[in-house]
């Protein structure tokens, strides 16, 4: 009996306790990434991957990228349009997420109400993403509610085409799906702000906007950065939302990889994945320069 109990407190305990986690990440995360890097230099044909050490996959990712400058090659164009999408989603989720978090943190007085309203915001996060995308069809479609309303009210005669299966609907869907990722970390940062600081600012004669900009925003920065990292990394590699909401017509980096995978061009897809990974790491590294993530938990 005594020996069993010692298992929980011995010095070796943390090692076996963390072992399952390490094992899962080693087998299903680290190894696959290493193999992706390895396979990205292999040759391939229609049936199989052939071990090799060639740069041809990377070369074909960047075909004509230098030769055609200043015109953008396909890969650069795809990255540019994906990054623009990222920027639009980031800005929309940031403004909306900040406003909602601010309302919950500073304008809802009772803790019970705060928790209840917070829950109201998070419940949709736990339901199916694909269904939440599909649910925009009856609203934004050619015969959808928005179009019938616009036509009846006389704003337009023909249905508005850019509402669905467009960049607009992709951004709407992303904001719908992922604003939660902004609200939670920003709310977390805001709920640690001492109300006395706000009173001090008020007493010192600061206006509401000055308090917001000089006190609340700087103190919410860690939450803003964490939320931004989530949003940007989710959008930059996405192909599902862009596929469904873009009517499979909008190019994105994730979509390129997915199409290559459907043709079983694994080494080529792997090379693209490595480039995407590098881009993500650079962006995240840049963002984490702004804040110590671990101190915020």
């Amino acid at each position: 009996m005594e020996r069993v109990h010692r298992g929980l407190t011995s010095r070796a305990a943390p090692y076996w306790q963390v072992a399952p986690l390490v094992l899962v990440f080693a087998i299903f995360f680290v190894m696959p990434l290493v193999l992706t890097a390895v396979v990205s230099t292999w040759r391939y044909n229609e049936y199989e991957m052939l071990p090799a050490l060639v740069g041809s996959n990377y070369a074909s990712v960047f075909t004509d990228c230098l030769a055609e400058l200043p015109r953008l090659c396909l890969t650069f164009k795809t990255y540019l349009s994906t990054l623009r999408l990222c920027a639009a989603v980031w800005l929309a989720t940031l403004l909306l997420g900040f406003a909602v978090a601010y309302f919950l943190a500073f304008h809802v007085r009772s803790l019970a109400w705060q928790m209840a309203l917070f829950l109201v915001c998070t419940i949709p996060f736990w339901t199916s993403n694909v269904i939440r995308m599909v649910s925009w069809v009856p609203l934004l479609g050619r015969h959808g509610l928005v179009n019938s309303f616009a036509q009846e009210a006389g704003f337009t005669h023909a249905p508005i085409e850019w509402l669905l299966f467009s960049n607009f609907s992709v951004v709407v869907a992303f904001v719908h799906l992922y604003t939660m990722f902004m609200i939670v970390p920003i709310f977390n940062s805001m709920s640690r702000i001492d109300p006395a600081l706000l009173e001090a600012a008020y007493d010192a004669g600061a206006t509401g906007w000055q308090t917001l900009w000089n006190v609340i925003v700087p103190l919410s920065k860690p939450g803003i950065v964490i939320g931004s990292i989530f949003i940007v990394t989710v959008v930059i590699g996405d192909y599902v939302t862009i596929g469904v909401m873009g009517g499979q017509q909008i190019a994105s980096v994730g979509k390129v990889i997915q199409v290559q995978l459907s043709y079983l061009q694994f080494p080529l897809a792997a090379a693209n994945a490595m480039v995407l990974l590098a881009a993500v790491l650079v962006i995240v590294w840049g963002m984490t320069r702004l804040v110590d993530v671990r101190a915020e938990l």
Partner: protein
Amino acid sequence: MAAVGPRRASIWLGVVFAVFVLFLYGPILTILVLSFQGPTGGLTFPMRGFSTHWFASLWSGLGVVDIWSAFGRSIRLGLAVMVLTVAISLLAGYAFRRGFRGATFVFYTAVASLIVPSIVVSLGIGVQFRLLDDAIKAAARLLGWTWLGEHFTTSAGTFTSGLGAHLTWTLPFGLLIMFAVFNRFDPRYEEAARDLGASPWQTFRHVVLPMIAPSLVGIGLFGFTLSWDEVARSSQAMGSDQNTLPLELTGLTTTITNPEIYALGTLTTGVSLLVIGLSLFLIHALRRRPARAHP
């Protein structure tokens, strides 16, 4: 909490919040209503009658897509992911609390798993199991195991590569929640238990576990619902003909042109809401329990 700024700001923010909630729930309510469309109704309003026609046609299957076995697979996988996420996160949470060599590295690996694009992780797992299959086949040929050579098709599947792919997505959330839990946990409760002669196991079972149980339910909720909904990481990792419900659903968005898809949406949302409801009830019940004074 001190209200900031004038009352007007409060009203405006309230309006923003209300619009946001409408934005969150409006679309899903629309398809809940439209899934009860009459037999002649289409994908948009107006409602042509009110019926359960589309649920009945969903029940009898969706043509070539075996939606019900995908449904069953997703439920079973979700439950497995839920149990494993809770167990592994709890153990790891304890380990991080005590500290161990390499803790920072493991922590950043977990965070990396969250921010590396899912398509990249999925591709890696797909490639890994493909290479494993090739290796097994080659070994079977080499060693003359003809039985294995003839019958073996793939090692990828729902409960091998699929389960692993989902865990790389749910475990970081579980771990972050455990961090938050233990950061706020007062170690004096454990010291008190120890002083009163409790063994480490008794301390865990009778002191720590009851206090963190609501959070564990929360981790389970994350585990199940994230798995129930996962598309991008599953896409290359499920093996052939082993699609989960959300994967089938993604395919159906381009092929189905009648309210069957809304009926399916109502159904999956129903499962999600049931799981959320059960979890919240359980969390509430567990929170109340300590109030009934233990002897």
